[in-house]
């Protein structure tokens, strides 16, 4: 599924450096990837790069980068990206976040939308909608691999297969898990305060959801959508937690018509 890798630059920010992938030209599309790792080299991103300038940071700890010694949780990532957006002088950007990157995007947007024109959240986590004994978000750190594949993919055959990876790629998968756990461990994959802050989002917002997502279900998405003023949600059939990978055409179509 590899497409054009784009240009990667390392940007030094107070407390941490961050690798930023850029490709394409047009309006700025600020992409925050999910727990699976960077997405800017995927075919869907190649398509979007025909219309947008993609600016996609690699969250520290992912894709072989180091977790900064001072980092403890998602708030560190959020404040790193506030600095990054200032340094890049982002203006009128569309921010698009996937899964826990969607959560990160929502946390950024509730702080300020001054640099944003629109917001796209793709199968985001970040809130809790059920009761204290409801497992709203599957426990990815304690679920058998085959069951996790069934939850996350419409067709589990689309799940990345370790048997087809090099040793180095498998190590990166494991490092990505460590970074994901750092950002999402407790409260697990959500911020109890976020629902009370989502009303602050005052830019047009689209949620995109894979209809078959079993990690966070479309019902969870509808609850999330209802908390953001004026937001709407598009559900993509025959796609799981990563609709941009399982249904790239439909995914790109939704982004283009919204953006």
């Amino acid at each position, binding site marked *: 599924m590899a497409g054009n890798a784009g240009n990667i630059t390392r940007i030094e920010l107070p407390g941490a450096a961050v690798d930023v992938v850029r490709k394409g030209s047009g309006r700025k599309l600020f992409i925050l990837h999910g727990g699976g790792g960077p997405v800017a080299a995927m075919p869907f991103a190649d398509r979007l790069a025909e219309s947008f300038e993609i600016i996609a940071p690699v969250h520290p700890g992912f894709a072989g980068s180091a977790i900064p010694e001072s980092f403890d949780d998602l708030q560190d990532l959020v404040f790193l990206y506030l600095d990054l957006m200032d340094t890049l002088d982002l203006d009128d950007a569309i921010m698009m976040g996937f899964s826990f990157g969607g959560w990160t995007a929502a946390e950024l947007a509730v702080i300020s939308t001054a640099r944003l024109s629109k917001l796209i959240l793709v199968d985001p986590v970040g809130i809790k909608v059920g009761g204290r004994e409801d497992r709203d978000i599957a426990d990815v750190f304690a679920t*058998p*691999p085959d069951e996790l594949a069934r939850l996350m993919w419409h067709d589990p055959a689309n799940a990345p297969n370790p048997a087809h990876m090099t040793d180095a790629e498998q190590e990166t998968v494991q490092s990505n898990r460590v970074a994901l756990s750092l950002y999402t461990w407790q409260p697990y994959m959500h911020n109890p305060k976020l629902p009370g802050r989502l009303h602050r989002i005052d830019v047009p917002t689209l949620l995109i959801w894979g209809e078959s997502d079993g990690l966070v279900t479309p019902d969870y998405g509808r609850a999330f959508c209802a908390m953001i003023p004026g937001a709407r949600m598009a559900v993509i059939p025959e796609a799981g937690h990563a609709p941009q990978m399982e249904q790239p055409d439909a995914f790109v179509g939704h982004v283009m018509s919204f953006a």
Partner: protein
Amino acid sequence: MKAWFFTEDAYPQLPDQDSYRSIRVSLPNKHYDPETGADNYHQFIDMWLMAEDLGLEIMLNEHHQTATCVVPSVPIMAGILARESKTARILVLGNPLANLPRPTRTAEEMAMVDVISRGRLECGFVRGVPYESAPANVSPYRGTERMWEAHDLIIKSWTSHDGPFNFEGRWFHARQVNIWPRPYQQPHPPVWVTIGSASTAVPVAEHEYVGAVFLAGYPRIRPIFDGYRSGYLARHGKAAPIGRLAYAALVYVADSEVEAKSGGETLLWYMTSNKVPVEYSNPPGYHPPAVAAQIARGSIGGAGIPLQATLDDQMARGNMFCGTPDQVYEQIKAFYDYSGGFGHFLIMGQAGHLTFDQTRRSMTLFSREVYPRLKELTASYDADAMGQTRAALPDKEAADLGAFGVEFAR
């Protein structure tokens, strides 16, 4: 040499292993019968007291959500033994500090055990095993750093006697700390820490604590002990005393080799029962990514312990000492010489379905016929002479570690 009798206090009355996915974390506790469990607890307490009567010291530990060890609170069992035993040292190995929320409570609990026992506590601190990340709901990432910060707070709690202090660390915060009781032993009980690599051994050596190694066997013991000794020498300018190193293995002694092997086979339950799937054995941040990747692709046992362990293999590795008293002594001495020596021998003397009587017979023979010779061995310990003995024994071929390197790479 001090020898310590250890049982994990397992609950072995389980359904067929094929009927469940994991013995840890998720095995439904409907399989635990409280009446059987009560009998088990009393038998294990009797077993520790029997070991004391034989002149052995006592060792115990804790684990969580597992049938392999139904002591989820080692301070409780240590408290019982502090009262019930009379002379034995009581080694808690250990308190899983990285997974415990409040180090000051551990400081209080251990001080209380120390006082009740009139100063017989030896207090171990461990990071905790990977499977317990979920039961504790603690990310294992930076677990070693968490453990040492908790340790710092406990030591300060034990040794502060003039009123409260506050502690605001990276992971642990405490205010107005002023524990009652304070420890019986001054300035505090001896401290032990488990070690599984040269790098984890160094800070333990620098603190002059006892470094305890579990089942590293011939393939791994030298780098770990050498790491301790060199770390000790570098910090303290002298050779590490032999009493600063400990080795834990399975032991069964009998009058005949046949009977011994039968007992040894029964003890192997400790390894063969430990069925744990990858989602519990490989939590993010416990293992280095390269090891985690190996576990994920199944090239080494997810549980870290081979379910297919055989007696001969485990004896060859130095994880099991089994035979007649003469044979067991020779096996331990061979490992002792190869490792460069250790002053504490931690005996996994009971596991699984090994009965009280089988355990008693084995430990009786050990204490009467093996232990005295081990004491002579360490009484004549001389660091230089040991260095020469060791040097004459070439490194054993670093055989495939199997899964042991994973389980105990703490």
